[in-house]
């Protein structure tokens, strides 16, 4: 294709998604992705991974921890 093979592209996806590649490199990645279903699928998986991570809500504080925390904060001089 244009000098980038799939093995190169998979190492550039994070920079690509962050817009952190220079213009020429970004164009080469874009062109590769347009022609390569394998790398397009890989990019989709990377995006799906990021989306799944964004849905990992933390557990709320348990009641004891929360009560202790607020008790300590009430004693803190403001």
């Amino acid at each position, binding site marked *: 294709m244009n000098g980038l093979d799939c093995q190169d592209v*998979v190492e550039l996806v994070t920079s690509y998604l962050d817009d952190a590649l220079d213009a020429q490199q970004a164009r080469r990645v874009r062109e590769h992705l347009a022609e390569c279903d394998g790398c397009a699928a890989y990019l989709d998986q990377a995006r*799906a991974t990021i989306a*799944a991570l964004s849905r990992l809500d933390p557990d709320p*504080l348990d009641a004891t921890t929360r009560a202790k925390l607020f008790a300590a904060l009430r004693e803190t001089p403001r």
Partner: protein
Amino acid sequence: MGETLPVDAELVELLQARDDAAFTLVVDAWSPGMLRLARSFVSTDESAREVLQDTWIAVIAELHSFQGRSALRTWVYRILVNAAKRRAQQESRSVPWSSWAPVPAERDEPTVDPARFQGPTEDYPGHWREFPRAWPSPESEALAAEVRAVLTRALEHLPARQRMVVTLRDIEGYRSDEVCEILAISAANQRVLLHRARAALRGILEAFFTPDEAERPAKEVSR
């Protein structure tokens, strides 16, 4: 938790005026994520809870000096990270905070098994042997819950610095410049750590969604 926080400027004003309701709202909204991040620095849940408490006490003490150069939440997280690092040092955990640079293996080793690409003597060196397959979208709540469980377990096994960066970027939703500020690391290091973390988690989800795919390269490499 369901209540929406006021915009930053308003929030800072309320907190600086010692508005208890606003303070409670912020502590409730941010503490769960803060506790999760603190946990990746220290060795016990108890230590993480203490770091959380120390952080909010420091926030109360230093709020008057907050100048709005970054978002309030970013500023609070920066205080959390400093408190967590101090605690980790007391515990003498082995993560070397002074050197955030990725180890050479993190920088140089491929993130995808080289066996999945064609070798130099094949038709298309460096190209996929078999394309990765599309994953089912986790439409059912049962599947979504399973994915969350798989990811939660996988995060626990990531190297600490990768876990911190991916937690801040992809779970907490901070921008890269904010993560660099919170962790006091360079943009390049942030990206290397994020890249490895995401690639490892993608691999684990792939093994979950398409288990036969993850096994295939091993068979092909022996032919």
